[in-house]
């Protein structure tokens, strides 16, 4: 629920205070009594009182004096400018429409004019003060003067939300009086007095001031009326494909491991032959056997005992088997390692043959082919033996021509490198041929 400004205790306290204002207690006494409760929330109390004071009809003249005294006393320990209600007090003191004794009382409270600022006037009761008030004895200063004196040193406005700082009082007078009868007229007031006689209470246009007062005090809230912002609630997200539609699942059963106690000698013959093939060329019939067995069992290639490290030996001894195995391993996760080994091998007729065959059989990674060619070219350049160099250059040239013609490589990628190679070895017939081929492709 909305915040009520005052708790029950505070409400009682204020009501009692206001009621007792008509008694003959001195104002000072009442103030002291009022502030004995340390839990009292000064601001809330003062704010409620200030709201009540704004309505000139609500409080009696003595009650008003006491209320003003409290507004002042609540913050009297600080500088006047620190009192949040100082401007309210100043405005009240300058209110031409207010009773003069009230304005004078406020000026007294503020200590205006008399430097000795005696608090003597508080020693009398509120009604005494009104009775003894002599209008001629009091001069009323200009509002500007008061503002200058009390507000000048005021702190800058504390931070407050824009919407809230512009709040207006949320209490509206809604006098329920017959039309034509001025609610505030003296007649009505006198009628009221008359109504207060026992037995004549619920007459039209009448009402109980005490009831209204206690009701107000009970319901006043800190927040005034403020302009309201419409904050639309975002729409709910549309339900589209969100509902879960269910379909029967496929049943996945636990699988028996068929490999239990299985004959692990699978392909033992091939393993032996591959081992042999690493050490030297196989006989044609042996070679045939390997190829046939590998073709019969597509998984055998993974169990034939070959590892990337052993590949160079296989390539040098049995290039055809190497090609076959590599083609079968093309989908294996290890194929990258095989290629790495192949590309880093010493350049040789057989390795070139293997690569050439691979290029026609499967799609090789471009990067691999490029690196291989670069290695070929640099091998040619580094070789010392002229005869061997000639041979290798011729090999590389034929190899490159084959790659270019089969569109395995894009000449553009290697154009400069290959061209430089051709020029360097232009004395060799095949290099000149490769150069011509390059030119036709340009």
């Amino acid at each position: 629920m909305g915040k009520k400004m005052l708790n029950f205790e505070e409400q009682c306290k204020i009501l009692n205070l206001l009621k007792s204002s008509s008694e003959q207690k001195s104002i000072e006494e009442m103030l002291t009594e009022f502030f004995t409760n340390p839990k009292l929330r000064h601001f809330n109390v003062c704010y409620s009182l200030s709201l009540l004071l704004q309505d000139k009809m609500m409080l009696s003249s003595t009650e008003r004096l006491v209320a003003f005294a409290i507004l002042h006393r609540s913050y009297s320990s600080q500088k006047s400018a620190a009192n949040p209600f100082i401007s309210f007090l100043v405005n009240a003191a300058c209110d031409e429409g207010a009773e003069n004794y009230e304005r004078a009382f406020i000026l007294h409270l503020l200590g205006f004019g008399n430097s000795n600022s005696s608090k003597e006037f508080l020693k009398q009761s509120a009604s005494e003060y009104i009775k003894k008030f002599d209008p001629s004895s009091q001069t009323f200063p200009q509002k500007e003067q008061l503002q200058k004196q009390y507000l000048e040193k005021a702190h800058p406005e504390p931070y407050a939300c824009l919407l809230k700082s512009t709040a207006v009082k949320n209490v509206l007078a809604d006098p329920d009086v017959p039309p034509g009868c001025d609610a505030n007229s003296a007649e009505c007031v006198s009628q009221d007095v008359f109504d207060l006689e026992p037995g004549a209470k619920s007459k039209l246009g009448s009402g109980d001031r005490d009831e209204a007062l206690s009701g107000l005090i009970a319901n006043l809230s800190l927040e005034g009326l403020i302009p309201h912002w419409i904050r639309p609630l975002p729409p709910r997200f549309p339900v589209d494909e969100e509902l879960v539609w269910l379909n029967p699942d496929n049943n996945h059963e636990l699988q028996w491991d068929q490999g239990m106690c299985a004959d692990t000698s699978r392909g033992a013959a091939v393993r032996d032959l591959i081992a042999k093939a690493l050490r030297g060329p196989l006989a044609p019939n042996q070679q045939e056997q390997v190829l046939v067995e590998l073709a019969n069992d597509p998984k055998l290639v993974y169990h034939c005992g070959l590892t990337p490290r052993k590949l160079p030996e296989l390539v040098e001894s049995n290039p055809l088997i190497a090609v076959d195995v590599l083609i079968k391993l093309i989908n294996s996760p290890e194929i990258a390692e095989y290629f790495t080994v192949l590309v880093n091998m010493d350049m040789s007729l057989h390795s070139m043959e293997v690569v050439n065959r691979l290029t026609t059989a499967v799609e090789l990674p471009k990067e691999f082919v490029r690196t291989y060619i670069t290695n070929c070219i640099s091998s040619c350049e580094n070789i010392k033996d002229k005869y061997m160099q000639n041979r290798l250059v011729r090999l590389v040239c034929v190899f490159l021509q084959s790659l270019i013609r089969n569109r395995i490589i894009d000449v553009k990628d290697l154009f400069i490198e290959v061209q430089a190679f051709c020029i360097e070895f232009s004395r060799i017939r095949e290099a000149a041929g490769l150069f011509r081929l390059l030119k036709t492709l340009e």
Partner: protein
Amino acid sequence: MDSRDSSSSSVPNRDGTAGDDDGVLSVTAALAKDAALYFQSRKFAECVDVLTQLKTKKEGDPKVLHNIAIAEFLRDGCSDPKKMLEVLNNIKKRSEELAHASEEQVESGSDVGNKVTSGSKESGSTTHQVSASHSASTIYTAEFDTSVISLNIAVIWFHLHEYAKALSVLEPLYKNIEPIDETTALHICLLLLDVVLASCDASKSADVLNYLEKAFGVGNVSQGDNGNILLQQSTNLVGKLSSVPSSSLVSDASTPDLAASVNASENPLSGTLSEDPLDEMFSTLDISGQNLSRSADLTSPKELPRTTVDRSIFGVDLKLKLQLYKVRFLLLTRNIKLAKREVKHAMNIARGRESSTALLLKAQLEYARGNHRKAIKLLMASTNRTDTAISSMFNNNLGCIYYKLGKYHTSAVFFSKALSNCSSLQKEKPLKLFTFSQDKSLHITYNCGLQYLACGKPIIAARCFQKASLIFYKRPLLWLRLAECCLMAVEKGLVEGSRPPSNRSEIRVDVIGKGRWRKLLIEDGISRSGLVESVGKDDWALGGDEEPKLSLPLARQCLYNALHLLNCSDSSRLKCLLPSNSSLEENESSDGASSKNPNHKSLVGIDSKPSTLSVGLVNSNGDLKEPKAGTNQEMIHNSVAYFADICRKENQMMKQALLANLAYVELELENPLKALLAARSLLELPGCSRIYIFLGHVYAAEALCLLNKPKEAVEHLSIYLSGPNKVESPFSQEDCEQWLTEKPIDCEEPNGGGGAATAAKNPSPEGMQEFMFLKPEEACGTLYANLAALYATQGELDRAHQFTTQALSLLPNSTEATMTAIYIDLVLGKSQEALSKLKRCSHVRFLSSNLQSNKSS
């Protein structure tokens, strides 16, 4: 050297009891065969007996242990799958240890040999790489192959609905699937497909589907319009290869002696070097041309069927299965048109067989097309309702349909039926592993949550979502829904500390005193202060049994969760849009050892090469170009791209909703700065709907106003000002409809079922009703009211007054607008006008002060 090689080949028998003893070997083999037969005939007790005998002969053999574990688990009624997982993991670990040990033996032997033979300079660099990855490969040497154990672990995770965990087991297997034997490989692929479909991962599904069709050749051999695909593929292949020889070296004029040498050397690879090595070189080089037919045979990359023999083994069953998978995939990717074609095809394959799954999928298809009546008919036709699991699905699906028809209460009935089916399924004995995966109660519970939310029951809805979060916690939408529950609960005053709804939409006026003393105290009922204070410290922790305490801070937390998940999926989806690259990245990150390899990138690229054929077939409208004569691969790939597009759009929409909700929640929690941030990011979203742009501006303006920056606030609102005091409609009715039907629905061909198409195109009245938001004119009124409030605080009362008049004409019942109007009157000193406005307003409740003071005392 000899001894080394023989030792490597005899390693598998190393721990066997005298593996070279033929007698013992045959005894174990016979026992193994018996056990397998018992297992197949589901006589698990007998099977375990035989296995126990076998165990004494092969102590510690992981495969024996594995089969014992499986048989015992099945014998005992699958009672404790979690424990079974533990057992299997232990066996797997042991098997890997053994493999590693034998590996080391081989390695230590071969290292010596290696140093002797290869003295090449590169050996140093390569050795490292080779040995790093070597262990991975040798796991697949038959003896210590753990693929079946891993598969079974994944099977259990799958049945427990733990798809992420199943995936983490299956993916390594799938990546290294080549060496795995056919049957196991097929099981792995099928399970993986189910897992990725269940986790709605379209691109992985596509990958596996493609692989299955290629490797097992089933998808290609289809009737009707797909018949030409195989032909096309194979001709493509041949064409590619045959282009090679035509320009081969043979025809090179510069080497005239070449042709002769080719003919001369019949078998140039005999290994013996000829006299002129160069000649031999030439000849071997061009052999590639001559022996082309041979080399084509040798090619067994994934383009070719894995084995032609296997196809007949798996037969029609597998064919139908794959076809149904394809339909499920197409439904997942919302490729309705193709799904329709393929489901027809599935019905053809299933002719004369049990095809209830096909019918269910057809029902789902019609449901997805918005053809609800037909969906109901198909459901009715498909169902064998004696089966509890099936009837649970049946009820759930009917619930979905009735929800879409806007009949929330009917749908509630079906959902709760489905749930009770599930709970009776749990009681069925004997327990099967399948029973676990058939329990879809959490999925159904999610549907219930949606239904309760639609019925305006946020607390019970939240309870459903909380339960469903066990499986859906990674879905941003779940968190958005929970946040919506919170907002609805707060709005309805169901949350501790929030006002009951009447208080929020009404102006409360305390009538104090009587007669001429009567005062009206206007309570600031709309002001939200007080909500913040109710924020409890006991934030709802996920997974607790406790009921979620719906609150605004919880809403905020949920929204942040959703945003986080959405951003994660955005970045991963970005990868999916570039299929080849994404698989590359995954591979690179997963096997770091080989990622240094310069060749690696393009090597892995081979796999996904076919799928890069046709990126960009999805045109800018988001329509899918029908791949008329396209291959399966293309079709699948297009579907993935299309789905990625849908997901991107949906995520965009969700992001708008999340940010708008967040801005709203932050405003409610009185954090204008955070609200402003959220609203600004909402406005910065590309392709933001006009509805959410409107919300973004309104929230931003309010936040700025709360931050005392009225000038900037005015800027946000004045975007909609067309004249000095005239507001333009921030969005149109069409915008609302478009928002509701954002999903690109495949429309029916004009000749058939036009009704379905229109039903799908336009939001149903129920849908619009569900979309509870301001009408365009109400949005205008909101803008007027807020401009009025803004100018009132600025002291520009005349302007404020004009706006407020317009606001009240559009929103006569708006509490806020009335309050602002009254405020302006009061500031202008027109208390009589304020009073008459107050008395005219239908949303005012006058309360007697006596009651109030009594209550408060």
